[in-house]
């Protein structure tokens, strides 16, 4: 499986997939996509990279331990639930901030951060499983 072609292409392929995963994550609110799917795509990207170039390369590329990434995602998701409390609304009521940006309007919202949290949890937890399985398989 580990052919030269695959090894050469894999980094580019995974980079593209990472980009795509972020795209899917961000567009999720209006088009098919979202944090969960995005996260799965990103994990697949890491898996491909790992099969081609080895686990240690993936770990270097991820920079942080996958479980830390998952944990920060969970924290981000939980934090995104809280802001409404300060407006005396029930927790999780979504808050929207419309920012004009280069001639268009960017909607920032707490559900967005929530979704990013979901993305990070999925990426972290599943790639942690895949990586540690792969590591011992070497």
């Amino acid at each position, binding site marked *: 499986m580990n052919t030269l072609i695959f090894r050469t292409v894999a980094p580019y392929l995974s980079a593209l997939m990472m980009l795509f995963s972020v795209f899917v994550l961000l567009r999720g609110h209006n*088009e098919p996509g979202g944090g969960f799917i995005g996260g799965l795509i990103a994990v697949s990207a890491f898996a491909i990279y790992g099969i081609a170039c080895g686990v240690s390369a993936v770990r270097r590329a991820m920079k942080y331990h996958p479980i830390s990434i998952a944990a920060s995602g969970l924290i981000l998701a*939980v934090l995104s639930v809280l802001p409404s409390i300060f407006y005396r609304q029930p927790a*999780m009521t*979504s808050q929207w901030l419309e920012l004009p940006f280069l001639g268009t309007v960017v909607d920032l919202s707490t559900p967005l951060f929530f979704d990013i949290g979901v993305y990070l949890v999925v990426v972290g937890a599943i790639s942690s499983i895949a990586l540690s399985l792969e590591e011992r398989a070497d």
Partner: protein
Amino acid sequence: MPLFGVEATFWALLGPFVAAALSPILAKTLKHNASWLLAIIPALAFLQFLSFVPGIAAGQTYRASLEWVPTFNVNFSIYLDGLSVVFALLISGIGTLITLYSGGYLKGHQNLGQFLSYLFLFMGAMLGVVLADNIITLFVYWELTSITSFLLIGFDHLRRASRRAAVQALVVTGGGGLALMAGLILAGYQGGSFEMSELLNSGDILRESPYYTAIFILVILGAFTKSAQFPFHFWLPNAMEAPTPVSAYLHSATMVKAGVYLLMRMQPALGGTELWMTVLPIFGGITLLIGTILGIRQTDLKLVLAYTTVASLGLLVMLTGTSDPIAIQGAVIYLFAHSLFKGSLFMVVGTVDHEAGTRDLNRVGGLFSLMPITGIAAVLAALSMAGLPPLIGFVAKEVLYDGTWHVMNGGLWTGFALLGNAMMFALAATVAIKPFFGSKVKTPKVAHEGSILLYAGSITLAVLGVVTGGFIVSVGHQILSPMTSAVLGAPFDEELHLFPTYLSPALYLSMATVALGIIIFMYLDKLRLIVAEILRTIGWGPDKGFDQVVEGIVRFAGTLSNTIQTGSMVRYMRATFVVIALVLYVPMILTGNWPKLEGFGSLYVYEWFIAAIAAIGVYAVVTARYRVTAIVLLGIQGFAVALIFLLFGAPDLSFTQFMVETLSVVILALVMTRLNLKPTDARSSRAKLFDLSLAVLCGAGISMLLMSIVQLPFDPTISEFFTQYSRTIAHGRNIVNVILVDFRGFDTIGEIAVVMVTGLAVLALIRVRPKSEGNSKSENNR
């Protein structure tokens, strides 16, 4: 919140927790001197509680409340009456002294800050218990005392005995706490209020409730475990593993009295029934005798005190259980006196241990000239414990004899009290005389008086025993009678006297106690041998019983998991799928709701095409020779399903299905390479046939379930709601995503938490190396 008045009590409740947060920081910079600064906080709380005394003596009660969870009748409310204020005064007052003492006792200890922190946490919890009006608030604080006492007993956590004692205390008091919670909630519903102050004024509601017996049993389970009543008394002496400041505070003056507090608190609502007046005095009386007898057995000064504490708690429960005004007055005075003298004696013993290096009765002696202040404290406190005039212990004993005599004209309770008090007299004499008088004994360390931090507490409490004895008339009027009134639920104010004004039966009983006590003291060494011999013959006690129960539970759990978890994956899978088949078919068979088999003819060509792909996938999986091939081929199934989702307008689902399918093939393949599996299937053909029919059964069952769901009339309310509001409320056009992150976002939090924990768990499992390679191999080959 205001700084004065009733509301300011909330600050007094908060204070210890603030102190707990400050302790580690202050202890780092100021070392043991931090306790001077920290003691200010409980001292201020003490003054706050003191300010209520005149009002309460005049018959007033105070209440303040903050809303907590109003939907469930849970408020953060406090109630100050004669009972709670005396307890609050003892907790904050003795707490101040203990804070100082801790500084001296643990001087130079590297974890002093942590220790003080735990101590303050406990103080805050204990204040909460006695001040709480709402019974849920009470319960929360009650459990907090169990947890903080666990931390304190296990402070010296490197020693095995400490850890065992801490766990034991937590299990016993925590278990009782659960019973108490049930009892309190039941009482709350039966009494129609969750506020203690209202329950107390509700007359006979609880006593006449059909659940009275249940409430009674649950509440006394809570009280008996906390206050170390027989047969739960064993945890208290074991808790002496804690540093002595803890014993002096928790295990004499405060925590163990929480059970007595609860009984006294509930007395107006639950007391006075035959059940109450039988069970409480009997168990209290037994505890009193067992405590003193086991106390005689000990040579460790601290353990002697611990067992006499058990005995005193028994005495208090016995007296409270009579529901008689005079006996309860006796209990109240005794409780007050006991907190003073026992707190003082524990500190004395701690100081002796600290300075002389031992607290064994036979290895100390003649310390008085070396440690005069501690010696004076010991003598005064012991005199009070022995019940000799002119100390408050004497008044307590007079009144309690008066009470027991009054209840039954001498009967059983007086007998219990007389025997117990006589033995307590002997033990008090031992604790004061043995270490401080007689010939000098060479101690491990050369003893000398400790720092002021070490003797301030014991001498203050000991002197207070004299002062309160001297001013018993006003102390009685201001503090003790209001407390008795609160326990009785009716006004009570009888003049107290230091010296009896007439020759009452109580005085004769007192004399008999002293006489008997002196005899016991003289023959103490012989008695000790006899008790030891008897205990050795019995050879079993609740302490051992506790170990046996714990061991039994562990063994049972081991057997159970060995039976269920054989380690054979095939068996697990079969069990799982058998259960799935049962769940699928049993309802259909019972209700007869089989799905109608119709609508299969009208499939489009491409739908047949996808079905064909799935069928080919199944065939390929079943006939695959190697496991890895089978896994990859299984992916075909998944992609076929994803295509179906796509065709029926669920792009999100389809998308996810594709990704999940890909990743599961990757991960499964990785798992396969890690396991030492035979590449081919090694099952016998019989086993294969069984598995095959099970698989077909489950598959057909799921299909039928789905078909019957589809054949149900469709209720569009929810989907219409989402379609309508997805854009307007949640600013999103992708309803699936909006549901995930907004409408049902709370579910998602739960799910990602599960994903996170699963990730952690898998990581941990992967890192575990099998204990013996051969064993795991043979399992995996199946």
